[in-house]
């Protein structure tokens, strides 16, 4: 793999607001003892690559209702796709929790990752402090991407 391809694979940086980060982690705790999941929507380049910005987050039902696997409920997926389309965005990724393992894609996650353009977010609840990390998964290969949590500046009195 050329260096440029490698760099392209391990990008972009996923940029979440503090509120988005908090909501995703809280939804993962709410899902216990099962895995929780949800979808991310944001802008994409003309090549359908995510820019890394997230404009909408959609908590979804785990149709498996399982502590070991997840399947995004297809009705929730349809709703999120329509919501993205109505806002001129694309679905750019999915998050799910690992209740007792690290924030790294499992073999099942790698095998079932269908969207090479998506960012796959893992939230581990294994330790007292939750861990959120993000990956691209392509053809069985995993590349971690950076996650930036931005503090929103709102309501300034100046």
């Amino acid at each position: 793999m050329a260096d440029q391809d490698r760099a392209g694979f391990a990008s972009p940086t996923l940029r979440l607001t503090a509120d988005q980060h908090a909501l995703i982690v809280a939804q993962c705790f709410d899902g216990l003892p099962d895995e929780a999941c949800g979808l991310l929507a944001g802008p994409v380049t003309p090549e359908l690559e995510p820019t890394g910005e997230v404009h909408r987050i959609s908590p979804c039902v785990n149709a498996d209702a399982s502590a070991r696997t997840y399947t995004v409920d297809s009705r929730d997926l349809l709703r999120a796709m329509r919501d993205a389309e109505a806002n001129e965005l694309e679905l750019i990724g999915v998050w799910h929790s690992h209740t007792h393992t690290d924030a790294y894609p499992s073999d099942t996650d790698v095998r079932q990752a269908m969207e090479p353009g998506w960012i796959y977010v893992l939230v581990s609840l294994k330790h007292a402090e939750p861990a959120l990390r993000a990956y691209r998964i392509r053809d069985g290969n995993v590349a971690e991407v950076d996650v930036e949590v931005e503090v929103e500046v709102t309501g300034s009195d100046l």
Partner: protein
Amino acid sequence: MAVEVKLPTLLRAHADGAASVSADGSTVGEVFSAIIDRYPGLGGSLIGDDGALHKFVNVYKDDDDIRYLDGLDTKLVDGDVISILPAVAGG
């Protein structure tokens, strides 16, 4: 019968990048045959070797999962919107 078929991002590469395509057919199966004729690369992603809907794909007619209607035999009327959804799953 003209219907709109919305494609998930992973299938658009097989359809010249289109997010949705229009096709004719009186059932979901006929519409899929029409779009696979036009974009052969979609074939393997939609229909399994057994001729049935691929298990990693969900298909909705408007707000209804066609598995709970008549599957590929689900009847269509002009203006229906077919949404093809990838299975988003893992462990």
